[in-house]
């Protein structure tokens, strides 16, 4: 099963912190891959919060095609980090030409676009590049979004970190999510590496989502272009998050009611019973079924964790004001924030959503049996 580690920090930190946690938890994953998300970036990116950053893996040919394509659209490179890898191949890590992290200047005619329109355009561009790369596998993009970097690769996390040189000063962020292991149930595919990202919403999961096919079918039939891909049975969690919050206007307290609705007897006595039974019925196709722990971020840089009621070994949230970690195992948290007050660690149970807001001051628990903010 995958091992997950996420942190949210007042000061930008190196992704190596999260990778260290993964390494401590190594017994629980097979080292077949790693996904990394950096958000609320520090370093040189601090100055360009609005600039969309493209992250992906390209071949020489791919990068030429990308440049032409982006230029055509009017995007100019503002800043880039190219991760140069050692000449000597490392066992278990595929050979690639270029790992790209590139921030762009927005085209002039985008100036007057609303946030929503911009979101749609950015995600359309990402899809287009992905599609262009599909055939020759010469372009793989993981995200194209302001203030966000995503790195995915097959191989052992710690080895990868050394290989890619992630321990560099330009790479620092206040939100870091990392996941070890490649994919459950489906063939190895780079896109299947967690975390998954869509328009500012990110999730990563461990467990198995047995309701994957019906959920995928539901999402893909909503007519939203970005609801696509689905190389992994948990990619849908990120899209459900987006659907619940953006399309249905729920708050994060509603997400859990969508993926793991209350059982009938709890529902009957809930202060919002009427609303919730409508939600449960209409979103029935989005109920996840499997022991799952989901860790995610929201566009306002909140970090949250929820579990399915079947999850017997829940993840843990702990830390101190200014720095909080979300980990699938306590040892991961111990490795990164050893000096926290452990008695205040929280293992959210099946009714809880643990949230650390953008101020990073405390963990709030929102219980599913409590009243929620209705979007009505």
């Amino acid at each position, binding site marked *: *099963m995958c091992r997950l580690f996420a942190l949210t920090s007042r000061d930008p930190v190196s992704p190596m912190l999260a990778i260290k946690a993964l390494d401590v938890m190594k017994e629980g994953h097979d080292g077949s891959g790693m996904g990394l998300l950096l958000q609320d970036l520090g370093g040189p990116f601090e100055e360009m919060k609005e600039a969309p950053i493209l992250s992906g893996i390209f071949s020489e040919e791919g990068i030429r095609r990308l440049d032409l394509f982006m230029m055509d659209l009017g995007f100019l490179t503002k800043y880039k980090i190219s991760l140069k890898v050692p000449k000597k191949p490392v066992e278990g890590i595929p050979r690639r030409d270029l790992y790209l992290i590139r921030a762009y200047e927005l085209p002039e005619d985008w100036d007057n676009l609303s946030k929503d329109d911009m979101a749609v355009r950015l995600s359309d561009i990402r899809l287009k590049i992905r599609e262009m790369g599909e055939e020759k596998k010469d372009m793989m993009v993981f995200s194209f979004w302001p203030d966000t970097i995503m790195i995915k690769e097959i191989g052992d996390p710690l080895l990868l970190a050394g290989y890619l040189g992630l321990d560099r000063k330009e790479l620092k962020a206040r939100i870091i999510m990392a996941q070890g292991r490649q994919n*459950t*149930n489906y063939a190895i595919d780079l896109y299947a590496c967690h975390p998954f990202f869509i328009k500012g919403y990110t999730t990563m999961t*461990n*467990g*198995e989502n*047995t*309701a*994957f*096919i*019906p959920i995928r*079918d*539901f999402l893909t*039939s*909503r*007519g939203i272009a970005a609801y696509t891909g689905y190389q992994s049975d948990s990619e849908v969690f990120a899209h459900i998050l987006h*659907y619940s919050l953006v*399309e*249905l*206007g729920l708050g994060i307290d509603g997400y859990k009611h969508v993926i*793991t*609705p209350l*059982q*009938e007897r709890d529902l009957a006595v809930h202060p919002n019973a009427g*609303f919730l039974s*409508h*939600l449960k*019925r*209409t*979103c*029935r*196709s989005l*109920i996840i*079924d*499997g*022991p799952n722990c989901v860790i995610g971020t929201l566009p306002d840089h909140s970090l949250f964790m929820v579990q*399915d*009621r*079947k*999850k*017997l*070994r829940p993840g843990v949230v702990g830390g101190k004001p200014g720095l909080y970690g979300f980990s699938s195992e306590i040892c991961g948290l111990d490795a990164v924030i050893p000096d926290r007050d452990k008695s205040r660690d929280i293992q959210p149970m099946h009714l809880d959503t643990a949230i650390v807001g953008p101020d990073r001051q405390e963990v709030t628990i929102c219980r599913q049996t409590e009243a929620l903010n209705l*979007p*009505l």
Partner: protein
Amino acid sequence: MSSNRSLEPSALSLNDLPWQVKFSNDRCTLCGQCTAVCPVKAIELGVFRKRTLKPSIRRQADQGVAQDVFYGIRQKTDVAHACIGCAMCTLVCPNDAIHPEKNPGLDRMKFHINQQGVPRRRGGRRNAAGSILDRIKFTRISMLTDPALDAGRHEFEMRTLLGRVLSPRENMKRLKEKGWIPPVREIYPLIIGGMSFGALSPTMWEGLQMGVAYLNEEMGMPVRMCTGEGGCPPRLLRSRFLKYVILQIASGYFGWDEIIHAIPHMKEDPCAIEIKYGQGAKPGDGGLLMWHKVNKLIAAIRGVPAGVSLPSPPTHQTQYSIEESVAKMILSMSMAWGFRVPVYPKISASSTSLAVLNNLTRNDYASGLAIDGEDGGTGAAYTVSMDHMGHPIASCIRDNYLNLIKIGKQNEIPIFAGGGIGKNGNLAANAAALIMLGASGVQIGKYVMQAAAGCVGTEEDRCNVCNVGICPKGITSQDPRLYRRLDPEDVAERVVDLFVSFDTELKKIVAPLGRSTSLPIGMSDALGIDDVAAAQRLSIKYVV
């Protein structure tokens, strides 16, 4: 018949009959139980003459010929009295002296069963044992994660929705605007499908109703039962048990007067209204309750004279087209109950099912679609319809579900599958397969008759005399001498047994697949079949 007279074409020998009665003279005590119980009078007391030669090596006078007479059972060979293999005679024989055997050769009676120009009519089944549902396997077993589910200990929510479910966004919008939201019922995914009032005996009916009430009130399983055409006993209409009942209105409108008149007195709304357009066993054909079964009670409830055959027309004659039907019938039925009761049509599986479904998706008042496949049972129909018409349920459900996915309305219009589920006894596996192919639930009829009342019919053309009111088990007869054989309490108990054990089996299927909180509707990645063509047709995995 003497040997020098011409034989009639339909003079059959025992060899020509589909079922042959094997009788053992040395065990028979001539109690007469078998001949008394035989529903078709296939056997009678026979007087046999036997000539025995008595040779002797001694005196001439000791030798001779003895003429003996003995009594036994004789099987009739005329078409009207041909044995139906029901084995009631075996059941009642105290000495195991008699049993029917299926003729392994070609049954020549087939060629003569059209006496007086009437082709064969029967009740029962298609008599084809094969079932694609039985060949589907569940191949996705969840072994990777946290402790696997335990069917015996874990909590499961095996419920389905009957009713129009709006899309999440639309529902949210109507909540905000305080608009009308269609009624939805949360029910158990195994439904007792429509078997008409009048087709079933009063004891059978009562037994089923009691069983359903017990399941709901004592076992906490929201099981629902459909009435079938013919109406509903007035006392039930006015009782609190009505909420467990789906009222069916079919093209003959039988019994609907009574129902409409009872509306003001109803303490509870019925679970739903099913408008029957077709049965899978005889697509395009109407229902037929033959006169044998129309006694005074049935006539009173149906609102017709007693002792006449009651054919329903194949379509609702008051409606011009299915579109009009959907628009008008569904609306008026919804209106009758103040838009609080889900209303949905039931059609035969056919290549036009998709058209009906498309039509329904555009109608907020349509609460679902029940599709009945070719293996569906029926009270009475022509053999040719039962054996040669219809569409298998698996591919029909799949086509419809995939079509709903295409337009993004899966589970908004729930599809209920019927017809041949558990026909070879594998009820839970068949039901689970259909649910994973896209059905929101399944309807069973014949299975209930077999499991809860001991119907002796099989897929080998056994019995199948449900239409003529001589059901030897008293299930489909209106003759008190016959239906007294069936104790409603026993039926109720068996209904409960059947549902509770189905529930266990269903959990034994879904738990290893890692499902417990939502019914695995459309979870097609769990399915595999060892036939390329079938796999392709159903868009599931091909596994060998």
